[in-house]
């Protein structure tokens, strides 16, 4: 489990984050939770990578942040996807599928 973090390809984490917030604005902790749940615990996002990635995305204008009250009635920073981020997400998904398909076909052929 510990290993899956470092094996995450650069750029992939950002794609996952964009996907996680594409439905509705959520805060950092929830992003980590969601990725973990959806991947059935296969992918675990570490805080040390999550927040720098979030800030990078924010700087590039893919996400925007807003302080809001969370479900626990505490203030939390909610991230939502921007138009630019959505485009990036679509492009990233397409790219990922192509890459995954290509890798899959190589691996199958090798067998």
């Amino acid at each position, binding site marked *: 489990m510990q290993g899956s973090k470092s094996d995450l390809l650069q750029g992939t984490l950002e794609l996952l984050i964009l996907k996680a917030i594409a439905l509705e604005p959520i*805060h*950092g*902790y929830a992003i*980590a939770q969601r990725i973990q749940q959806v991947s059935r615990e296969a992918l675990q996002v*570490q*805080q*040390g*990578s999550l*927040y*720098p*990635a979030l*800030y*990078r995305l924010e*700087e590039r204008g893919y996400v925007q942040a807003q302080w809001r009250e*969370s479900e*626990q009635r*505490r*203030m*939390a*920073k909610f991230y939502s996807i921007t138009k630019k981020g959505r485009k990036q997400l679509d492009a990233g998904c397409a790219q990922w599928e192509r890459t995954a398909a290509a890798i899959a076909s190589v691996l199958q052929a090798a067998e």
Partner: protein
Amino acid sequence: MRWLRPLLRRSAVEREMDAELRFHYDRMVEEFELRGLAPDEARRRARLEFGGLGQVKDDSREARVASRFEGFWRGFRMAWRALAKSPGFTAVAVVTLALGIGVNTVMFSLMDHLLLRNLPVRDPQRLVVFHGNFITPGMYRGSGRRLSFSWPKYIAFRDRSTAFSGVAARFAADGSLEYRGSTEKIAVELVTGNYFDVLGVRPALGRVFTPDDDRTEMGHPLAVLGYSYWQRRFGGDPAIIGQQVRVDGMPMTVVGVSAAGFHSVDRGHNEDVRVPMTMKNLFTPGWLGLNSWNWAWLNIVARMKPGLSPAQSQAEANVLYRQILVDEAAKLSASYARRQEFLNDRLDLLPASGGMMDKTGDQMAFVAELMAISGVVLLIACVNLAGLLLARTAGRRRELAIRLALGAGRLGVVRLLMAENLLLTFLGGGVGVLLAAAMGKPAARLLISLDAGQLIDSPLDWRVLGFGLLLAALTALAFCLAPAVQMRRMQLADVLRTESGATSSRAHVRLRKTMVMAQLAFSAWLVLGAGLFATSLSHLRAVDLGFRKEHLITFQLDPLASGYKSQETLATYRRVRETLSALPGVVAVADSDYGVLTGGINLNTLYIEGYRPPPSGAPSVRELVVSPGYLRALGMPLRAGRDFTPADLPGPNQAPRVAMVNEAFARQYFGGKNPVGRHIEWSKRIQFEIVGLVADQRYDGPAEQVYPFYYYPYEMDEPLSFYVRTSQPSEALLSTVRRALEKQAPGVPVDQLRTMDDRFDETIGDQSRIAELAIFFGVLATLLAAMGLYGVMAYTVARRTREIGLRMALGAARADVLGMVMREVATVTALGLLVGLPSGLALTRLVRAHLYGVSPVDPRPVLAAAAAVAATALVAGILPARRATRVEPMRALRWE
């Protein structure tokens, strides 16, 4: 401005980040509690899983764009601490840079004042100065004959030209100013009434001239003071306005002071007092030709009409010029041979935004040479600093590696190094600029004449400051890139494993050796330049001037400029001659109308017995009017015939009858035969018998040609140059001579009273200053290079201690070890010279024009430069080499 926010409100951003991470952590704790862990255990697990909070925050910060700026501030604080930890290194680096930048800033300030700066007037780009190509007779003062025009021509342009919104004229003259009993020589500028208006120069005080101040001949005894003269002579006292001063003996009213910073339209000059043009006859008693159409003496400055391009203005001006020439040609004698040439002359309008360019060719070359030398100094300072930085980084490899290992991030380390270098460069730049501010004025006085030195009122203005900062920024840029390159090479594991033997270390030595090589090459340039300039200087000093300059005093008197009448002047000159001759220690006294080594000479058309002139006409020959005893006073050898005697002096209203000629004259016009007894004539009525043949005199200075000269005796009522031959070193007599003159010629300023040796040194001043500077910087550069070489070799020897120990243990003699190290030193030195000398020779080709009597193939300066650099390098290398021979094999092997 989102990116600015983190910078401005850093703590707010930090707080926000803290809050966000805190929220995350709290949720994790809750999560663990939900799973049934005790609160303590839940917190422990959360902490464990969360990782180092500081690390997360650091990484997060890095992800922000703004963190680049923020990191810099942090970096600067760290850099400051790091530099403060090694004050020795910091001091050396800052001083090195300050020298480089300071020297260049001073040079730039000089160049700016001499060559670049615009006149401080309204719209200087619209100003032009007239330049013709046909040479007419006239009076040329400094500004050159092609820039001089007659008064009628000026009037035609002023009244009829359509191309200009204003046309003004000026003439520079010498004069004297007496105020409350003390008389001083001044630079006078005769200006037309519209001069200030055309230029757009305002008064700083009182008023300037208007056309109404310039209507009737000798009818406007008014003066406008130059700002710096007002400061110097009257201490900036505003009460001087409306007061009377005596200019050339005539009472004149001071009406105003011109704007500060305006010195002259003649670049590099500084006029003290301006007087209306109609007062001309006061300053030019020898010639009154205001209205003669073929007597050129005025510089014409004009302001182009708005909307006209320079080309259009020039075309329009030439239409009028052509009309003027056609009118004038009608007055030429019918047989005038150059009529067509006269008619074909064209007017060029030279841009005058910076003033008239006169001898700037010379000045330009001089300043360019200074800039080149100082540029090389900066280059050497930079390379030297680079070497220092490299050594420092090498010494800090472990520290940097530890920073890396602790998670500083490669970027962080590079940033730290960059911040350090930036800080160093700006410290150095700041000190350099301050140095320039402090040294600017004295340096200007030292490097250029005192006169021009006065032009620099504020050595540190925004242009100079800007230049200094630009230099610092460029240097900083170069040094900021260096650590990035270095760090790319630095392998963390390598460094932590071991210090010695790592490949990067060898690369490091190679880099440093290359730098030392470059430094040696640069110093070879400067030393070679110094050698060439020094050789040139010694040649100049050794030139036979045709007279003995030792034990000789010279000065100039101009009683007319102080209001003396002609008869008074002649009487004064006689008294001066007698009094000075009677002084103890004085051997002979003589005078001439123009002075040796002061510039200026008359040419006169001569008809020479037995010489058939070419079709273009009788030759113009250089003429000196001298007193009897001229040869004796100057120590000029007589080759044949006799010197003038007092009996040769013509009486009042008599023409001179005898003359002497020099050898160049005899060679050119008498085929080298003895000319004594032959005749030369001005006209059928005025004939001279040649009574003596004298040696050639290098009248204009050692680097000048020898020209044909003829001398005749006469008592002139014009400004004279005097020569006093003394029996002992002449410095001792200077004050005695001055006292005698003040008594015999009261109220007449004694101009340029000095020994001929000093006068000679002034003549070759540019050359000797360049030579001194080149030698100074050459020595400095070589020492810096030697220090660099010492550093590298010491490092190499330390690194190879074990290898050397091993060699010695295996039987290598101390001499072998010494040889081994010295071979490296020799290789670096030889490579440096191999690169430096040929490129230096190629570069010195650029200054050949300024070198006197230095043959391009003369190997001596090259060999001398090579020997000097090599010797210094070998001395620098021998110290580490000797240390190598003292390595104890046993200790060396046990080491590490």
